[in-house]
């Protein structure tokens, strides 16, 4: 993990309240796994004492760039969105443990994402695709306005889209698509709101897979115990999302 002032080179609104931002920085040369995140300082002075964790959605080592996508939610993300190309952002990263793409032997991967949980799966799909692994992506959004990266994902594998209201793709949830399609895969990888994570991991209970979870963070580096999740089999009974996660084996942790 390093600490760097990343230079913003582009900023785009790519869906409703959803911003894509690309930075230039040495950090891109680190070995970054999909699922790892940046811990970003927001604003100036003491307006924001806590950094914001945002997943890495893409890395270009050649250009030395890192891309993130974030949703405008509260004050922090709204302030982040005001930063312009040329400005610098104070970042810690890559933080946490990502999806172990290099260690897993597999032929077919199922990626299941919901809303703003989709971005890290894009970087994951790229990495898996590069390794020649067949990728199926199931993405769920509230409605058409929220959808992003549809074309980009289609280039990397089989892409299924669900929206709550049916305004794009199929009407329903990602679990409806998984049920209907009955995919055949070696490992699943999921990221999204807790409700979706629970539904997916229950549905795929008999399969091997990984989930990425969110929690409010303090330090982001494992020192403050803000971000724990129960992990009954571990020695201490819990794991830290910022340091031991955010990516865990689906059966390793207990979702609240």
């Amino acid at each position, binding site marked *: 993990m390093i*600490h760097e002032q990343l230079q913003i080179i582009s900023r785009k609104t790519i869906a409703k309240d959803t911003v894509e931002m690309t930075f230039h920085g040495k950090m891109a040369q680190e070995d970054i796994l999909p699922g790892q995140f940046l811990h970003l*300082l927001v604003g100036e002075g003491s307006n924001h*004492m806590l950094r914001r964790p945002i997943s890495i959605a893409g890395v270009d080592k050649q250009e030395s760039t890192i891309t993130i996508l974030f949703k405008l939610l509260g004050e922090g993300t709204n302030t982040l969105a005001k930063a312009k190309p040329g400005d610098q952002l104070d970042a810690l990263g890559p933080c946490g443990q990502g999806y172990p793409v290099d260690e897993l032997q597999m032929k077919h991967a199922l990626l299941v994402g919901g809303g703003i949980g989709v971005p890290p799966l894009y970087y994951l799909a790229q990495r898996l695709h590069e390794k020649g692994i067949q990728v199926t992506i199931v993405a769920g959004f509230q409605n058409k306005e929220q959808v992003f990266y549809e074309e980009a994902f289609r280039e990397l594998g089989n892409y299924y889209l669900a929206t709550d209201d049916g305004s794009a793709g199929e009407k329903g949830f990602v679990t409806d698509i998984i049920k209907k399609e009955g995919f055949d895969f070696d490992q699943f990888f999921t990221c999204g709101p807790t409700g979706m994570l629970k539904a997916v991991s229950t549905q795929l209970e008999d399969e091997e897979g990984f989930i990425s979870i969110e929690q*409010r963070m303090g330090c982001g580096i494992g*020192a*403050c115990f803000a971000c724990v999740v129960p992990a009954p089999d571990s020695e201490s009974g819990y794991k830290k999302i910022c*340091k031991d996660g955010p990516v865990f084996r689906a059966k390793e942790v207990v979702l609240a």
Partner: protein
Amino acid sequence: MNLNVKLPGLDMKNPILPASGCFGFGKEYAGLYDLNLLGAITIKAATGSARYGNGTPRVAETSAGMLNAIGLQNPGVDQIIENELPFLAGYDTPIIANVAGSTVEEYVEVARKISKHPVIKAIELNISCPNVKEGGVQFGTDPELAKMVTAAVKEVSDVPVYVKLSPNVTDITVIARAVEEGGADGLSLINTLTGMQINLAGRKPLLANKIGGLSGPAVKPVAIRMVYQIRQMTNLPIIGMGGVTTAEDVLEFLLAGASAVAVGTANFQHPFVCSEIIQNLPDVLSKYGFSSVEDAIGKGHEHADTNLSRA
């Protein structure tokens, strides 16, 4: 410039130390900078046996501050001694053990055990954690109990005892006086103010524990007031804290009467903040006409003419 400060049990290269609970057991920050730079390190609270703490969310952001309700999660004193302290033995920086408990017996047990470890140079007796039902805050708000637990811990501790006071009291000087009578070697203040944030969408308190402890720059004026008031009534050394983010803030605490200054929440915003403050401190001291840290301690009282033991 001479940044040294000597306090009971603590021979510090400079007056800066991370505050308990904001620096874990040092390992994570050791990956960022050399812990030998620090004046001392206060580690996360230790209790008699492992505690899992409160549910999540455990932190919330507030204006110029944050709320936390970690709930004293820690692996218990034995595990800390076995798994955490050996790593810290590699550094030439005095370590302060933050000791918590629900009963006098628990405080005594933890203090006895941990004070015997050679890396531990002082105990910070945490009678002020607001985040657990049985977290010892009753000891921090009742002068009789405060005195009693201090005396009991003093009896078994091999190292000096700094009592960490709660700001959530009507008159902090009464508690300070009580722990002084109990034999405290020093005082540490302030712990967090109790506060709450309500989640508008969820229509309930945001923290799982509902109430949490407020820290960060927002609370600095309260902390400075308390350090100043206590400095007027006792000569016990004070480790001051609450909202420190810059070397100027450190000087403000020194002037108020603190001999050392702890940095908590700011580590989350700027993980290198302690090392940066140490680097900037000589310039700030000389800008304001001081030639050493010792020179500045308590100097905000020179013109004092009123007794402020009660505001």
